[in-house]
């Protein structure tokens, strides 16, 4: 603060007596500063380098800061929005007309606003800037430099520490709510795993117990049932939906049918029958040469009836998805009617064929 005041005062006092003859040179148009400032600033600076370097800030600045109004010349954050060239061009104008008009008043008046004005740093030419950079790169030890070095040392330290601690992203970095969510997640997983452990241990005890044979048979039967349902080799019944599609123009495409099957499976359908064909893992949708859609190689008769067993509510919801199966079929002029049933019978079955190529991997080798 003190330095600032002193400078602006001395600047004023230096300038006032010489107000008239000197006002024109200090703020010439853009090209001239390099001519006018260079000899004034840099030449005296270079011969007495050590002295200037020792107090880089003050001594070197004073002459440089002079030509243009720098009320707070040493603020390290000069207003970035100062257009370097525009300002300099604009500035002389208020000064010049004032000079011939009256001597005392205009010379003093600008001083007040000048002191308050934001710093207008003289934009150095690239040459100047590079020279200053070069001068800065020479080591010079004084109190200010050491203080600044201490601060930048702290900055470097803090920077590295912060980067490190961010990289770790340990639990200590998380907010309380995130920690609570994590804890909830972990404990619910622990619960689920614990339940699984209990169930498996019960199974193990039953299998190893006295009625081991019967229990093993029961477990095997259960597995067989679920595999048979999956493979579509047995008729099944259960809650589900029936979808009646009347598509006389045969506008349905392979994609639509695939989408429909996919939506039913996504909604948890456990067994699906389309027309007279059971949809299983190996089912495929194709088309005949005249554009009729086929399922597992058989053309689908019209009107088409789709049966699916699963949660009837979820299944009918899946059929009604906007832009989904029903929508796209209605879009091409077909009638679609979805009905929920408490009991749906799927009686189409599929012959099991022995796999020719695939062989199970022994359990010991399985990943």
């Amino acid at each position, binding site marked *: 603060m003190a*330095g600032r005041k002193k400078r602006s005062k001395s600047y004023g006092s230096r300038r006032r007596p010489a107000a008239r003859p000197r006002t024109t040179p200090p703020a010439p148009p853009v090209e001239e500063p390099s001519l006018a400032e260079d000899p004034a*600033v840099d030449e005296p600076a270079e011969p007495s380098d050590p002295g200037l370097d020792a107090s*880089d*800030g003050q001594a*070197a*600045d004073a002459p*440089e*800061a002079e030509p243009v109004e*720098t009320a707070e*010349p*040493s*603020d*390290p*954050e*000069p207003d*970035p*929005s100062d257009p*370097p060239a525009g300002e300099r061009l604009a500035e002389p104008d208020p000064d010049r007309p004032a000079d011939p008009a009256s001597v005392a008043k205009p010379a003093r008046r600008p001083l007040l606003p000048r002191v308050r004005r934001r*710093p207008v*740093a*003289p*934009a*150095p*030419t*690239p040459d*100047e*800037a*590079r020279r*200053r*950079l070069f001068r*800065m*790169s020479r*080591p*010079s*030890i004084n*109190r*200010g*430099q*050491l*203080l*600044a*070095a*201490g*601060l*930048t*040392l*702290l*900055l*470097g*330290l*803090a*920077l*590295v*520490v*912060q980067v*490190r*601690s*961010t990289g770790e992203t340990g639990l*200590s*970095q998380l907010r309380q709510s995130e920690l609570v969510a994590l804890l909830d997640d972990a404990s619910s997983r622990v619960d689920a795993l614990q339940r699984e452990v209990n169930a498996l241990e019960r199974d193990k005890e039953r299998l190893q117990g006295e009625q081991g044979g019967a229990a093993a048979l029961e477990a095997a039967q259960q597995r067989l049932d679920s595999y048979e349902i999956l493979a579509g080799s047995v008729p099944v019944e259960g809650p589900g939906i029936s979808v009646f599609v009347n598509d006389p123009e045969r506008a349905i495409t392979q994609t639509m049918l695939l989408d429909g099957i996919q939506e039913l499976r996504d909604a948890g359908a456990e067994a699906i029958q389309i027309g007279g064909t059971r949809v299983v893992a190996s089912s495929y949708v194709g088309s005949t040469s005249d554009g009729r859609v086929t399922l597992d190689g058989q053309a689908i008769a019209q009107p088409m009836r789709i049966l699916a067993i699963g949660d009837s509510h979820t299944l009918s919801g899946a059929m009604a998805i906007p832009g989904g199966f029903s929508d796209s079929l209605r879009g091409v002029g077909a009638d679609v009617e979805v009905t929920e049933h408490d009991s749906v019978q799927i009686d189409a079955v599929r012959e099991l064929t022995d796999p020719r190529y695939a062989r199970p991997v022994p359990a010991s080798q399985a990943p």
Partner: protein
Amino acid sequence: MIPLLGLVAGVVLGLVLSPEVPAWLSPYLPIAVIAALDAVFGALRAALEGIFNDRVFVISFLSNVVVAALIVFLGNQLGVGAQLSTGVVVVLGLRIFSNVAAIRRHLLGA
């Protein structure tokens, strides 16, 4: 030159010692670092313009850091710490950008 050496020494020190951030400091450190970076870029720009003053640098560095930490502290007390921190980071980021732009103009003339 010496400040640059200081920066390098700080980075090396941090890498070698890898100190733990004390818990009470951890919310303020990132903002303080950005504020300090702002001061450093401002100082570099001022140095290129020939108006660098170490006193002002030290004061502005410290006040930047303290004010940034204060704002974060106040924000935490008011329950808007995250938003206020974002605001501070945006402002400081803008200033760093404009200072770097000025440095670039000075050095490259473009």
